[in-house]
């Protein structure tokens, strides 16, 4: 059993994310819709994960803790998916191939199980990144 695997990450819209986004990005719905990663069963098994376990996803430019879920829309082994949004953008590389468009799809990440860590809220991630997080008010 590996304690870390490298996968190809894509981030795109999900309807759950769309509905929750319009409800508000500080809502529990948005948190649950977006702070997840979908992987193929083979990759989940390779890491020895149980469903709903938390993992750390690390790319060339950052890392984020998200929950592994079995997605309805299946991927092939080696491919991983985080719905577009705050959690995905903690790891999306800002390189644009001189087009203005960041590398939202097709960038390498490592995935490893974590213990004793939690998923951060959207506000904690974004405000924290720019030094404005003041804790749970």
């Amino acid at each position, binding site marked *: 059993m590996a304690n870390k695997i490298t996968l190809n990450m894509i981030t795109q819209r999900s309807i759950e994310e769309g509905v929750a986004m319009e*409800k508000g990005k500080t809502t529990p719905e948005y948190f649950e819709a977006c702070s997840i990663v979908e992987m193929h069963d083979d990759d989940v098994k390779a890491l020895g994960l149980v469903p709903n376990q938390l993992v750390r996803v690390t790319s060339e430019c950052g890392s984020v803790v998200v929950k592994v879920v079995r997605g309805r829309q299946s991927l092939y082994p080696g491919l991983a998916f985080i719905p577009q949004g705050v959690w995905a953008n903690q790891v999306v590389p800002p390189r644009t191939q001189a087009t203005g468009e960041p590398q939202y799809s097709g960038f390498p990440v490592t995935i490893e199980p974590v213990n004793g860590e939690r998923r951060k809220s959207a506000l904690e991630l974004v405000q924290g990144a720019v030094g404005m997080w003041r804790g749970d008010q």
Partner: protein
Amino acid sequence: MPKKIENVGCPYCGVCCDDLVVTVSDDGKQILEVENACAIGNQIFHHATGSERVKLPRLRQPDGTYKDISYDEAVDYAAKVLYNAKKPLIYGFGSTNCEGMAAAAKVAEKAGAVLDNCASICHGSSFLAIFDNGYPSCTLGETKNRADVIVYWGANPAHAHPRHMSRYSIFPRGFFTGKGHKSRKIIVIDPRHTDTAQVADIYLQVKQGHDYELFDAFRAVVRGHEIPDEVAGIKREKILEVADILKKARFGTIFYGMGLCHSDGRNHNVDIAISLTRDLNDFTKWTIMAMRGHYNITGPGAVWSWQYGFPYCLDLTKKDIAHMNPGETSSVDLAMRDEVDAFFNVGTDAGAHFPIEAVKHLRKHPWITVDPNICMASEISDLHIPVGIVGVEVPGIVYRMDNVPIQYRKVIDPPEGVISDEELFERIHKRLCEIEAEEAAKTEIKAAPEGVRAEE
């Protein structure tokens, strides 16, 4: 008596559904029911009156909290930020009307700003490919009435454009397509077996980032050349089968999405999609269309092209001399190179949707958010200015994904005192002109340079 308002346009995605029926309470203040909308559109209408709205601009205080201020104070603050910045960036416009976009462009020109819209991180690559290679497109009505083969490539309308398939592509019965989905072939090409793929007749699981090779294989086959046994994870026989369907179509449309624009290759993936469409027109009628995301993200492309000749990434730092050069004048690249010194986030949420590294760079400078809702951008701003929700509280022109303009209406009034994007930008423009005049009045008039006069 609650009032039913029919034929309401939906301010969510680029499909711009204009058949919604909205029931409002008899005092005209509450939205009671929304019919025909998808789950996301429904949420937008209900969110307008069902949640706590921000009704006054909020200015960040030294202790990190927000304090309510008047619109006049907010307009003054915004104008001063623009006046003092050397190269401000005004970005967003996914969710506002064309009137607001035109007013914002006036402000950008006055301030010498960079003006960019969400296409910059979405279908910007499509613009680049379309400049290079043309756009053999059509309207959604033509697809509905004529198309018997539909291709969704790197697009997942079941999630991102929930009523696209039922209104225009797969299910509707059109003038020449009376049998609806029974007479249509649906081909879905995507690395994920998406919910859209569930309704496909043929699904091709292309290897992520290898779309270009697959397009190339289709072009080779269509032109009568040999191809290898497998391309981009798809077997040769399958490619031949699909190529045959494409060639024998009566009328086809390729709808493509972020799978092409966000992957390696970017505009080149779209470029070759257009070339395949052109090749297929040697045999039958084929068209191609970008699955534009927000309901009026096609709008700034239309409005600013008319005003300045460019659809996005407009550098107006030389005021009325516009230039555009994605990679140089695109928002994320400007942010990563620290080239802008003030940021306006308008009708979008760069805080949530930009890579966090770009957000960190932009936040080093004044950040102003113009948006009806609380979002990530508003929560890291120096100033948050609320505006009315277009399509719910503010009417206006929007452009559908096929470049068809539609007049949106309002169904309720905005919260008392809340103004529209257009009014806000007009007021900022006016204040900017005043500040310029005030500053000019403070400086001493320079003596006219002495030159050689003709008569001397």
